[in-house]
């Protein structure tokens, strides 16, 4: 994108290279520490680390509560992702293509949960559920996460629609396809990147959500709630182990994706 900048950047380039690499180091320092502690022989997080062990990784497999919370997090994310996509994609399409009175207001309303702290979104849903005497469960967590993640999907899809030539849709209609058929055959396939991107982002956000879950979870804990609760007993390196594993998995995913997208481009 910025060939010219890179080539003729001069002092600006040097400055940004230094700043960029420093901030990347800053971003990764805690993650390195986390991975180190996941191999720490001691139970407490003190420096220097006394000895190294893979014990905590083995212990993961034994810790049924942790595994259950991990599974719950997956379940919640697996509910939130399709739900937000199903609701968000058509809504973003309608909002960006069909003019109607009150569209601007509605657009803002959908974006609210991005701006209002999750804690408040969570407690507001809690108040509502309470008024209707509904209990809390993973299901209510899914409902809450969906509210918070819907704007993420809508924003990404809207951004992609803005760059999608509306003539493609006209061409499809011109060739005899109705609005819904056009949406399915022309619009959706051209949104693939935005959809995959937002699905991934929603997954991450839901998987790591604390504030809303804090208010809405019932008998089941998600992984962040488990971690929060276990701070009471002291964070065990076991948790570092699971975090390290997730980093490893995400690195694998990302680089597979990278290779895949590269080979796709050739």
């Amino acid at each position, binding site marked *: *994108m*910025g060939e*010219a*900048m890179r080539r*003729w950047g001069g*002092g600006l380039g040097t400055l*940004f290279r230094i*700043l*960029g690499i420093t*901030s990347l180091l*800053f*971003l990764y320092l*805690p*993650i390195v*520490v*986390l991975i180190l502690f996941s191999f720490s022989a001691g139970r407490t997080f003190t*420096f*220097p680390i006394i000895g190294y062990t893979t014990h905590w990784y083995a212990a993961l497999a034994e810790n049924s509560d942790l595994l259950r919370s991990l599974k719950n997090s997956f379940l919640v994310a697996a509910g939130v992702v399709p739900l937000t996509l*199903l*609701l968000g994609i058509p*809504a973003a399409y309608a909002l960006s293509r*069909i*003019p*109607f*009175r009150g569209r601007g207001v509605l657009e803002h*309303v959908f974006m*609210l*949960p*991005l*701006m209002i*702290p*999750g804690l*408040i*979104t969570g*407690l507001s*849903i*809690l*108040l*509502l559920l309470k008024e209707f005497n509904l209990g809390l469960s993973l299901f209510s967590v899914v*409902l809450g996460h*969906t509210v918070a993640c819907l704007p993420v999907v809508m924003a990404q899809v809207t951004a992609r629609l803005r760059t999608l030539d509306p003539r493609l849709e006209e061409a499809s209609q011109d060739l005899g396809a109705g*609005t*819904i058929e056009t949406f399915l055959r022309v619009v959706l396939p051209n949104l693939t990147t935005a959809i995959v991107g937002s699905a991934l982002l929603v997954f*991450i956000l839901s998987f*790591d959500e604390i*504030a809303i879950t804090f208010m809405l979870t019932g008998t089941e804990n998600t*992984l*962040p709630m488990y*971690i*929060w609760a276990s*701070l009471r007993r002291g*964070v065990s390196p076991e*948790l570092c182990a699971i*975090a390290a594993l*997730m*980093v490893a998995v*995400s690195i694998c995913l*990302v680089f597979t*994706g*990278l290779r895949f997208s590269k080979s796709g481009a050739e």
Partner: protein
Amino acid sequence: MAVQEGLTAPSSPERTRLWSQTGILVLFLGPAAAYALIFLILPYASVFRFSVWAVENYGIHQELTAANYLRIAENPLYRAAIRNSLLVAGIVTTASVVIGYALAVYIAFFSGRGQSALFFLLVIPLWTSFLLRAFIWRMILGRQGILNSALLWVGVVDKPIDVLLFNMFSVCLTLTYVFIPFVALPVYAALEKIPKDLIEASMDLGGSAWVTFRRIIIPLSLPGVVTGAIFTFCLSFGDFVTPTLLGGPDVLMVSSVIINQFGASFDWPMGSALAVIVIVIVATGVALATQLERRNG
């Protein structure tokens, strides 16, 4: 939902067509709108309703009262909590924008062949538990943490320094750390959209890299900055995890007070009133930012 009519009264065929559009509108937008109504509008409305009620012995009295708001106005505690939250959010937003911006510019313009790999390096930290990432900073900033160990080893200090942890600094540092990717990602997206021709045109017209950066790149990437800044401001304003873990004696933030109200204090109306104030502050902030962006864009 009223379908927008033209300025002139539409003839009957026009109306037929708009009807079919209304059908599509209902089909596509209906589910999401219904969802937003039930799980977004109604809940936020509940917060407003609860905020004017009172609580008595674990029961909620549905009687209109301004007592909660009066209490917030009278007790300096609540003002201090809000002020702290604003301060933290302001510092964190500024710092994240500066660092996140630099990072995005580095990746977009100066990173060369590894660009896409670096881009994904921005995403990977998000896969690690937010709680643990916050917690781990205690291990870095503590008296026996990495930083102090390093400083002692180098000989910069002869005994561990305390000012790194359990204060405003550690809260802001950690939140900045958490939100850098949230700024860098939208800024990177905005930078990527700047046509290469514009940069070349600027340089062709005699603009050095610095001038091009200041006059072309910064203004055109502003929407990304605003997106990231709004996100960072709102989320750090409402965070309760970081002040709890790294806050120390002085950093009381409004979210922690709200949680108190919904928990052991069992004063949901009071908590709701505080929530309403947070909503108002955040909405004002967002409106200002949007206005600023519109004026510049």
